[in-house]
């Protein structure tokens, strides 16, 4: 089969609807008679609920109902534990999941206490202000270390502490490695929280239709099928009575998969009770409290090395902040634990984590999902080691890379999918070489000093033409791996219709990743049709019953391979049927441009539409053992995740007096196995890098010790803009994954993962002469924080030890 589309820069099938304003997002769905919901939320981070009085709200004209925890009766249940803990030996784990409405206690600012339903959103918001809530304040605990200290306020009293989990994973013998080391370096690191920042906030529209006994829910979810299954069970309905539609979604990035948000549980219930459609669209202010967040961790790490820079072992002990509840189990800290190992041959590893409840919004994965923190710790340790040993930063990485013949490489610990952490394939040095070439990095030692590092950038004109002071320029280069494309499975159904066009249905949701095109490319190649003739349907549980969701950079890997398998099966049916009709052996048939032709006899042919019709006859009988139509359903479940990797490099210039940093150039060399559509892959990487830049330098949740957020707006929480993100140059390395027939590895999160580690390395490089000994160990950095660090380093306090 010749490949016309796989690997090509195909323009997207979905774009026209999005560009003309025709595409329907959740809030664009308008049903007659719709009611609107607004939530009454806690303004305390920790407190006892003494009383909730909805009476004043009910007096307001236009208010239809107010519901509190007491009104929910038996429907009030803590949410499910989404991901059970991995079977790590000696693990302790306590699940405390979120509730639909706070009943006895509130545990973070913004936790919903009541929901008001009214004829318009404006009235609902007015009425939410009318509800009288009497809370008794309790001391809040916000800092993750303080949460585990003796005497800390208890968030879930029955546990007796705020410890949600404790786990140790080891490989080899770190203590022996430590004893044998020439160099030991130990430091503390921290990585703070941020929001996902999808441009579309979350939203739910639920419609119970009494006559058909059907519940339809439009939901900005990344996992429509599990939402359908869970809601059916909770509401006592058959799965066939519940339809969840995730239409066009305005960005996901992780938090749009969190079964279940209180709103997802409440709106269907309210619609069934009131017999009318009910809509709730989160506003941006709410989003800072009611949508999950991520990345708060503090690490104490140590690296043991030989004098030549080879790593003997790493020890890392960290605390992970899970917020007020932990519905996502241990996915995040395990990702951190596993991703820290990076592309390196690291024989001895001791990794221990504790997970702490805090009085902050719930933590679940955001693009990168715990991996950033692991990469930050490892790359920082290598930078420190390079400095200590007088080695070049690229060289110390090169010396420790796993060799291309080391695969599959077993790291002897468990990954988030409960499978052993085994890298499937990779080749890391070519990526490093390519990145060095593209960024123009010259290793230290080859010239009297690193030509970029610490030297002034050209004076004079800036990009905007304004003159400026001397800036110091620095280069950074880091590497990382990413476990992607985990199971359990996804499915797809491919059908040739009587028009000769193809319908492809899959259960995964899509939030802008280009699935309407990349999946169509896979199928179009198999069926010999134009890529625009493959109509892709995703995210509608009525169309496909089975599936999990879009997370862990798995859409293209898992659903993509299911699409491929279904298309291969349909291709076989096409050729078999054509062979019968044309009375020619299948081997002599060709399938291209929507027509089956006979090699050497161009007049003998049959179109796909005709074949589809004749596979679904109105008379006669379908033969035993065959099925009507040109249709097939297939599933794909990888045995474990595929390991993507990459090297990022950047050049920054820093104004040493103001600590403002400008990124001048950015290079990404990455390996996501075979590439379905380079255009889409580049887009994914660019977006990831921008997200990473935000996390590194701009985005910070300014939360005080009472758990109050001081910057819950996009005015004060700074998402990177077009002037903050530099042009990004990309290059591909391709080591196909042996774990799936198409050789794909995931790419959705890759861009975001190493950016903070890279950013601080480049900034340190720029300032190495101006502020000797400067060490950046906490993310996010900000101009203010960098300024303080520069001052400290210049005062001689930069090289503080652990």
């Amino acid at each position: 089969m010749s490949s016309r589309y796989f690997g090509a820069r195909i323009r997207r099938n979905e774009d026209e609807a999005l560009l003309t304003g025709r595409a329907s997002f959740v809030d664009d769905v308008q049903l007659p008679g719709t009611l609107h919901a607004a939530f009454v939320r806690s303004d305390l981070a920790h407190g006892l609920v003494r009383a909730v009085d909805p009476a004043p709200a009910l007096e307001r004209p236009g208010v239809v109902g107010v519901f509190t925890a007491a009104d929910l009766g038996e429907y009030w249940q803590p949410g499910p534990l989404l991901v059970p803990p991995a079977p790590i030996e000696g693990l302790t784990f306590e699940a405390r999941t979120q509730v639909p409405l706070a009943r006895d206690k509130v545990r973070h600012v913004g936790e919903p206490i009541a929901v008001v339903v009214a004829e318009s959103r404006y009235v609902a918001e007015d009425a939410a202000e009318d509800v009288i809530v009497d809370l008794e304040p309790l001391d809040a605990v916000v800092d993750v270390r303080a949460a585990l200290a003796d005497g800390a306020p208890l968030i879930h009293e029955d546990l007796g502490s705020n410890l949600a989990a404790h786990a140790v994973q080891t490989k080899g013998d770190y203590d022996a490695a430590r004893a044998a080391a020439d160099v030991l370096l130990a430091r503390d690191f921290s990585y703070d929280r941020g929001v996902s920042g999808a441009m579309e906030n979350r939203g739910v529209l639920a419609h119970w239709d009494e006559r058909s006994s059907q519940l339809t829910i439009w939901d900005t979810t990344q996992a429509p099928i599990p939402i359908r299954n869970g809601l059916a069970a909770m509401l006592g309905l058959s799965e066939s009575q519940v339809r969840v539609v995730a239409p066009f979604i305005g960005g996901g990035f992780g938090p749009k998969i969190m079964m279940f948000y209180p709103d997802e549980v409440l709106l269907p219930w309210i619609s069934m009770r009131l017999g009318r459609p009910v809509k709730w669209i989160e506003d941006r202010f709410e989003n800072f409290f009611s949508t999950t967040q991520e990345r708060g961790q503090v690490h104490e790490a140590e690296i043991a090395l030989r004098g030549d820079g080879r790593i003997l072992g790493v020890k890392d002990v960290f605390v992970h902040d899970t917020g007020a509840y932990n519905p996502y189990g241990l996915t995040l800290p395990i990702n951190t634990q596993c991703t820290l190992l990076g592309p390196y041959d690291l024989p001895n590893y001791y990794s221990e984590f504790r997970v702490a409840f805090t009085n902050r919004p719930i933590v679940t994965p955001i693009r990168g999902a715990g991996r950033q923190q692991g990469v930050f710790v490892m790359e920082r340790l290598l930078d420190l080691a390079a400095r200590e040993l007088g080695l070049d930063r690229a060289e110390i990485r090169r010396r420790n890379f796993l060799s291309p013949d080391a695969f599959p490489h077993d790291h002897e610990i468990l990954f988030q999918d409960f499978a052993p952490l085994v890298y499937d394939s990779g080749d890391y040095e070519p990526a490093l070489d390519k990145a060095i070439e593209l960024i123009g990095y010259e290793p230290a030692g080859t010239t009297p000093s690193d030509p970029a590092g610490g030297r002034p950038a050209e004076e004079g004109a800036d990009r905007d033409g304004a003159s400026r002071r001397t800036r110091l320029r620095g280069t950074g280069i880091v590497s990382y791996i990413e476990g992607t494309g985990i199971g359990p499975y996804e499915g797809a159904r491919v059908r040739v219709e009587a028009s000769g066009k193809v319908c492809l249905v899959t259960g995964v949701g899509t939030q802008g990743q280009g699935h309407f095109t990349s999946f169509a490319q896979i199928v179009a190649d198999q069926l010999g049709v134009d890529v625009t003739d493959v109509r892709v349907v995703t995210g509608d549980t009525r169309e496909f019953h089975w599936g999990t969701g879009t997370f862990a950079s798995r859409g293209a890997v898992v659903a993509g391979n299911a699409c491929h398998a279904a298309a291969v099966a349909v291709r076989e049916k096409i050729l078999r049927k054509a062979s019968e009709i044309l009375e020619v052996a299948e081997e002599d048939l060709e399938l291209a441009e929507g027509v089956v032709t006979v090699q050497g006899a161009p007049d003998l042919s049959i179109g796909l539409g005709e074949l589809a019709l004749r596979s679904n006859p109105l008379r006669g009988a379908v033969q035993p053992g065959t099925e009507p139509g040109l249709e097939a359903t297939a599933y794909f479940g990888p045995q474990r995740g595929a390991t993507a990797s990459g090297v990022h490099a950047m050049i920054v210039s820093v104004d040493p007096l103001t600590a403002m940093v400008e990124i001048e150039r950015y290079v990404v060399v990455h390996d996501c196995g075979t590439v379905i559509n380079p255009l889409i892959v580049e887009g994914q990487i660019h977006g990831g890098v921008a997200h990473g830049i935000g996390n590194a330098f701009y985005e910070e949740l300014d939360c005080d010790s009472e758990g109050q957020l001081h910057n819950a707006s996009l005015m004060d929480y700074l998402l990177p803009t077009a002037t903050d993100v530099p042009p990004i140059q990309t290059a591909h390395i391709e080591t196909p994954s042996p774990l799936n027939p198409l050789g794909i590895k995931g790419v959705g999160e890759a861009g975001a993962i190493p950016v903070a580690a890279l950013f601080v390395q480049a900034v340190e490089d720029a300032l190495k002469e101006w502020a000797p000994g400067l060490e950046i160990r906490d993310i996010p950095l900000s101009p203010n924080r960098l300024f303080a660090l520069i001052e400290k380093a210049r005062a001689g306090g930069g090289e503080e030890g652990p």
Partner: protein
Amino acid sequence: MNATGTVPIRVTVNGEPYERSVEARLLLSDFLRHELGLSGTHVGCEHGVCGACTVLLDGEPVRACLVFAVQADGASIGTVEGLASKDGLHPLQAAFKEAHGLQCGFCTPGILMTMVAFLDEVPEPTEFQIREALSGNLCRCTGYQKIVEAVEAAAADLRGIS
């Protein structure tokens, strides 16, 4: 204001005249989306930062979430629904598709409307000018690079040199 507490307004949207009676506090964004059913204008922050709701008010780009519908009385409004013509996509729309200048597409209508006005004013922009003009529109998916490329291509197309 009339007896029902609403205010009658007349607007022209994408060349079509509309007469409605609205609450004085109704945002122009909600008016377009929910009263007129023009849901191509998206709402991302409701405090004027993200730019997703940008529309043209008498030719000037404005944040529809920072304007009350009553303030638009008598005005001519342009939204994303009015960009394409019978002959096909507007050059900016076509360039966004060609350059992969959108992913989830939620911020796209606001960016298109901002750029329509920008290219009107600056037909031959530099990359930096484009980035500056885009800096009031947030996009979390694309990293902006392919948006910049799309605007560069559209500018050339509109000048008739592509």
